[in-house]
């Protein structure tokens, strides 16, 4: 098989036709993972024999006539998903040699579909961040510019050709911002469509399982393989019938894209031009473009940070050294807790836990937290009304260039980088980041937001755009 950037389906079909074995594909992927990891730091663990054994199992199943939609597809798994075969570190010093007794539902699902896990990808301190820069293992480097952050190590690994697919989590936008910064596609599905069983989340209301990949259709292959109700995750949706307009094969001329142009003014110079050009190109393909307003973006970001901090302070309470991680010797129980928790929580996790505890305290709960829950309601209503007028919303994914790795970024400024993604997380709607242009030689992606349970239509339309418009190259190969 001589394809430079093969789609997931092409790989699986080649394995089924006997043109290549899963073992050959995975050996090649592992070699690339190992060769590039010293410069990119995308992986915290790279699989060896474990991956080859999985690949052999795939080959055996295919030989026995089993159809596997992801046969031989190399997948990188973010290190906040439990995976019993490799260590799971959650981006914390306290879990250096932790092996989960079980694997996350999403990991199990991908493996059952024939994918092979090539390693666990780097992540921010307990998943808190959208830069993959605050990891105890050091930052994951952007393959487009070695002095810049990647946003997501999984997206960076896909862009660098270390794997075909990355299993990601996304709360405030790490998956989508990573896809934008690394020039690949990224899907955050509708809340509840993929099980989060086995995913370590800091913000239970917003964390969602998704993917990054080189092609839009790869996202759908992975999504189809693992989406659905899971009794182990009570927040998964018993999938109702997908709305008719989301199901039928729509042509671009049937689709209305809403553009909230006023919020584009928050973009850095150069980035605005990318959105304006995309708008023109989408119209040229036949999409109907309409203007609309989404006024609550600035406040939605603030609401997100209040709720997410409150939930982080609650979720991180379990890192007490007894159930997870340990600090070793202590004179008494109080000291044991303090030592264990101080080891488990890095700088950003400590900050968020303190902010969250403060915001949930008497008086502040009513002033901040309850107000944030009410603003959340207004934001959802605003998006609902907007999506009654159009099928998709066109939004930026990032405000500006990925930050230099060497630079210490003020924490408020790093929160503001989530300006275009965190508000969408509040809605639970599906969103997809697709490559849209280059600014100063670095990729920039845009975000399409679809209607609830419209993941398939959203991905199909992104695929059409990739076919009909000359999008910038996906990945750096």
């Amino acid at each position, binding site marked *: 098989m001589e394809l430079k950037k093969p789609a997931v389906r092409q790989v699986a079909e080649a394995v089924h036709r006997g043109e290549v074995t899963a073992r050959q594909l995975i050996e090649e992927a592992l070699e690339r993972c190992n060769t590039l990891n010293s410069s990119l730091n995308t992986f915290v663990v790279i699989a060896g024999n474990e991956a080859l054994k999985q690949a052999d199992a795939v080959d055996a199943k295919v030989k026995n006539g089993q159809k596997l939609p992801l046969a031989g597809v190399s997948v990188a798994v973010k290190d906040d998903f439990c995976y019993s075969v490799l260590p799971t570190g959650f981006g914390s010093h306290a879990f250096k040699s932790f092996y989960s*007794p*079980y694997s996350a539902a999403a990991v199990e699902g991908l493996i059952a579909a024939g994918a092979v896990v090539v390693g666990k990808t780097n992540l921010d301190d307990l998943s808190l961040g959208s830069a993959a820069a605050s990891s105890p293992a050091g930052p994951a480097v952007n393959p487009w510019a070695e002095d810049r952050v990647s946003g997501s190590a999984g997206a960076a690994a896909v862009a660098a050709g270390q794997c075909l697919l990355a299993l990601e989590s996304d709360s405030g936008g790490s998956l989508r911002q990573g896809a934008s910064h690394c020039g690949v596609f990224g899907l955050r599905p509708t*809340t*509840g469509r993929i099980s989060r069983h086995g995913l370590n989340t800091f913000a239970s*209301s*917003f964390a969602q399982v998704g993917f990054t990949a080189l092609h839009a259709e790869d996202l759908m292959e992975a999504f189809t393989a693992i989406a659905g*109700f899971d*009794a182990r995750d*009570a*927040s*998964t*949706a*018993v999938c109702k019938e997908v709305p008719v307009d989301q199901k039928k094969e729509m042509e671009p001329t049937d689709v209305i894209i809403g553009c909230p142009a006023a919020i584009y003014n928050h973009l850095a110079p150069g980035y605005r031009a990318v959105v304006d050009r995309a708008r023109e190109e989408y119209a040229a393909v036949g999409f109907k473009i309409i203007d609309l307003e989404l006024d*609550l973006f*600035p*406040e939605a970001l*603030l*609401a997100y*940070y*209040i709720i997410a901090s409150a939930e982080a*302070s609650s979720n*991180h*309470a379990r890192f*007490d*050294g*007894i159930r997870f991680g340990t600090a070793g010797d202590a004179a008494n129980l*109080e000291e*044991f*807790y*303090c*030592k264990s*928790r*101080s080891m488990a929580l890095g700088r950003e996790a*400590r*900050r968020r*836990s*303190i*902010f969250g*505890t*403060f915001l949930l*305290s008497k008086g*502040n709960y009513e*002033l*901040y937290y*309850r*107000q*944030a*829950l*009410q*603003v*959340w*309601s*207004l934001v*959802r209503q605003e998006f609902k009304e907007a999506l009654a007028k159009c099928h998709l919303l066109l939004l930026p994914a990032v405000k500006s260039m990925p930050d230099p790795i060497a630079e210490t970024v003020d*924490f*408020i400024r790093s*929160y503001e980088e989530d300006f275009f993604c965190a508000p969408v997380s*509040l809605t*639970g709607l599906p969103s997809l980041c697709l490559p849209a242009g280059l600014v100063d030689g670095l990729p920039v992606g845009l975000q399409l937001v679809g209607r*609830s349970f419209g993941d398939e239509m959203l991905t199909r339309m992104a695929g059409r755009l990739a076919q009909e418009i000359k999008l910038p190259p996906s990945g750096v190969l």
Partner: protein
Amino acid sequence: MDSAELALARAIKAIKLEIDEQEREQLLGELNSFLHWLEPLLMVDTAEVKPVLVNHGAVNVMRDDRAQPGELTALRKATTNFDEGFYQVPTILE
């Protein structure tokens, strides 16, 4: 100690972290910056607005409270120390 310092001290105590004086001062500055940053949110008119409680419209689906065949075997396999239906864990405190 002003009210912000007091609130911070209470939060640190509640979440059980070892924090030295230098970090405490830094956190106090960061908390004040954060609260200042949040101020525009307080200006939004939310009278009569019901708060959101869950981020999806799905009805909670509970599992049947019934043991599944093979569950105990799976639990046994997940640990090296499983006796009389209980996990045995190392002593952490004398």
